[in-house]
């Protein structure tokens, strides 16, 4: 008997009907939806156990201590260290995404020579050649580290020069060096004892100094109070986030800070509200009104307000001599609650303006991207992330530097701190292949230089000898109680922080012979913490989502 079309049709119908009685359709229905819950192309976190280690953030000179969660050898999250008396467990937004930075799309992974890829070997040869042909300049954006010492001694031995790009906070303290002879790197603000803070555009609540420090003070002593213990008065041309939350906001024309400072000093001196013996500035209130856009009454009112609750300190965003002069007039220099000397005399280094004509410039990865040296020199630039618009960012050599927690480094006292601090940031992440720090290159070139390792050890010894200050680790203990250098170094290397004694009581003498002329300088708005080369993709994204920052700011990433 032959099979007809009809038979096949019936057979098919039977099969279709029968299939419903089997697990096939039902199991498939289920499994397909389970598949849609576990799409293979969607990454999932590891199963590996999580361990927490301590280190410090090395993305900027604030060096906030961090707790880093690691799984399978990679950081999977960061948090602050609440027990740390300066940072108070706070981190800036950049910090909370820092563990993603090493995979940032802009991460540098190969040596670039001009626009084309090259190798470390060629870079070394080129650098050696430059050395022979003489003089080189080394530029450091984060002075005071062990690496900085490597730069300095290398420059001295090779007859080169070492220059630093001070952070904006340090630059704002430079005028006092001229007035009182104390290097800016040794000065800090005794904010804990101040009761009125007059900020000339400084983003005090927005990444200025150690983020946790002022935020904490402000939150505890000012936030929401009609008559706060700590009066924050913000002088700024626009309603920044600090201005928005300040106790008072004085909106002035851009760049008129100097005029306002001088005018306020004049009011205070004329009305005899300050005791300091300084000459009365020439600038009249009428001129000030015309420059600042504030009425004379407003200026008078503001002047009276700031002295109503002493101690008061004025904070600038750049080396504005008039604001420094105002502080002298207010008697806020070298006094409790003002600008204080934080301790032992540190060496102060020449700035980048003093770079003469050199054969080559070596730029450390800590130097901001907006710095580009004179054209004729050959530029060796270290960077972990390419923050430049062009591929090589104007450098002849672009050298991939270690990223977040990829190298051992140490954390000197952050700017604005009123006390000395020291910490070591152990490397917790296996470094990306092909990366090398500037210090490593130099130590490779001149093998009898003291390496970062050695310098850190030496510094630990100094701390141990001094027997001063306190160690904030898992437990808090005075250095005097630490049994040996090894123990001290071990503790520091596991993320403990050393904090020196408060010496703010030491008085400084600085006199003001005559007033700097209040020139109308274009206001230099201070770059805040995340002005860095790269913003974690998360942070940049989230700023776009919320309306917290202007597009120009998040586009940096």
């Amino acid at each position, binding site marked *: 008997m032959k099979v007809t079309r009809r038979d096949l049709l*019936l057979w098919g119908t039977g099969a279709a009907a*029968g299939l419903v009685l089997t697990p096939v359709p039902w199991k498939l229905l289920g*499994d397909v939806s389970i598949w849609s819950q576990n799409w293979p192309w969607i990454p999932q976190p590891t199963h590996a156990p999580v361990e927490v280690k301590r280190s410090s953030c090395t993305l900027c000179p604030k060096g906030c201590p961090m707790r880093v969660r690691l799984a399978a050898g990679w950081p999977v999250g960061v948090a602050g260290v609440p027990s740390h008396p300066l940072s108070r467990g706070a981190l800036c937004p950049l910090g909370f995404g820092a563990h993603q930075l090493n995979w940032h799309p802009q991460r540098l992974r190969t040596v670039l020579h001009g626009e084309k890829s090259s190798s470390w070997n060629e870079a070394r040869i080129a650098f050696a050649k430059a050395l022979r042909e003489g003089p080189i300049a080394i530029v450091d954006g984060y002075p005071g580290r062990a690496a900085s010492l490597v730069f300095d001694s290398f420059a001295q031995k090779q007859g080169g020069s070492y220059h630093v790009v001070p952070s904006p906070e340090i630059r704002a303290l430079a005028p006092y060096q001229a007035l009182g002879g104390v290097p800016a790197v040794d000065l800090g603000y005794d904010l804990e004892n101040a009761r009125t803070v007059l900020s000339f555009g400084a983003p005090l609540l927005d990444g200025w100094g150690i983020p946790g420090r002022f935020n904490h003070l402000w939150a505890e002593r000012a936030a929401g109070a009609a008559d706060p213990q700590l009066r924050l008065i913000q002088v700024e041309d626009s309603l920044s986030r600090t201005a928005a939350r300040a106790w008072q906001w004085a909106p002035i024309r851009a760049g008129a800070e100097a005029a306002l400072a001088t005018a306020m000093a004049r009011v205070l001196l004329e009305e005899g509200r300050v005791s300091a013996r300084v000459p009365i500035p020439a600038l009249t209130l009428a001129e000030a009104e015309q420059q600042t856009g504030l009425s004379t009454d407003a200026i008078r009112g503001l002047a009276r307000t700031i002295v109503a609750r002493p101690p008061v300190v004025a904070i600038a965003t750049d080396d504005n001599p008039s604001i420094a002069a105002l502080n002298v007039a207010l008697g806020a220099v070298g006094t409790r609650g003002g600008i204080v000397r934080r301790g032992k005399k540190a060496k102060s280094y020449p700035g980048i303006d003093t770079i003469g004509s050199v054969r080559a410039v070596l730029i450390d990865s800590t130097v901001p991207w907006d710095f580009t040296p004179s054209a004729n020199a050959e530029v060796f630039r270290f960077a972990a992330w390419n923050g430049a618009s062009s591929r090589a960012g104007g450098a002849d050599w672009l050298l991939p530097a270690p990223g977040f927690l990829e190298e051992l480094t140490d954390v000197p006292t952050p700017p604005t701190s009123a006390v000395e601090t020291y910490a070591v940031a152990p490397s917790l992440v296996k470094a990306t292949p092909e990366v090398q720090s500037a210090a490593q290159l130099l130590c490779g070139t001149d093998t009898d230089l003291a390496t970062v390792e050695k310098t850190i050890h030496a510094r630990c010894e100094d701390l141990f000898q001094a027997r001063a200050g306190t160690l904030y680790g898992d437990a808090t203990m005075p250095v005097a109680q630490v049994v040996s250098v090894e123990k001290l170094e071990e503790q520091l290397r596991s993320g403990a922080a050393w904090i020196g004694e408060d010496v703010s009581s030491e008085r400084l003498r600085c006199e003001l012979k005559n007033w700097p002329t209040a020139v109308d300088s274009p206001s230099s708005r201070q770059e805040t913490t995340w002005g860095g080369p790269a913003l974690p993709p998360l942070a940049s994204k989230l700023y776009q989502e919320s309306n917290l920052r202007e597009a120009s700011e998040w586009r940096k990433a």
Partner: protein
Amino acid sequence: MSRNSLALGLGVATALLAGWVAFPQVLYVRKHQPVEFHHKTHSEKSGITQCGDCHTLRADGTFIGMPRLETCSGCHSQRIGTSREEATLVDEYIKPGQEVPWLVYARQPANVWFSHAVHVRRAGLGCAECHSSDGQSDAVRVYEQNRITGYSRDIWGHSISRLRRAPHEGMKMGDCESCHRQHHFEAGCLGCHQ
């Protein structure tokens, strides 16, 4: 007429055969463990009696799951005996310090949060209540992986119909729920999911 019903019947029969017999074979891909491991041998020869001796709970309550290499190398740093399996373990994993890529029969997907600490310490469940006699196995089972979902077959249970299965068989959400119901334990979705 009878011819028609015959054709129909044949159709139904083919479908039933394909669905109940062939389908399960096709659905799962069979994989072998990297190393032939016998629980029995270990409990008898090396006096490891407690599951927790190797499958430990960490201090923070997280479960180590498959023991890490250091646990094995505690004894197997050198070959014990001459079996080929012993050779593979020592030469391919312990010597190079390479973790053994065990295939985990009871591994739940990423969206499930299962805490051994909660079930063993707090609820006092015995290992066998979910893992049955795996602890006494004298041969490693073949690991069957669902081609579509990528889940281990143990999650669904061996019987494709899920009828007449042993109490420990099956680790689907429904199975968790029924056990929770028996013990009058209520958890929201995120009580067990993440």
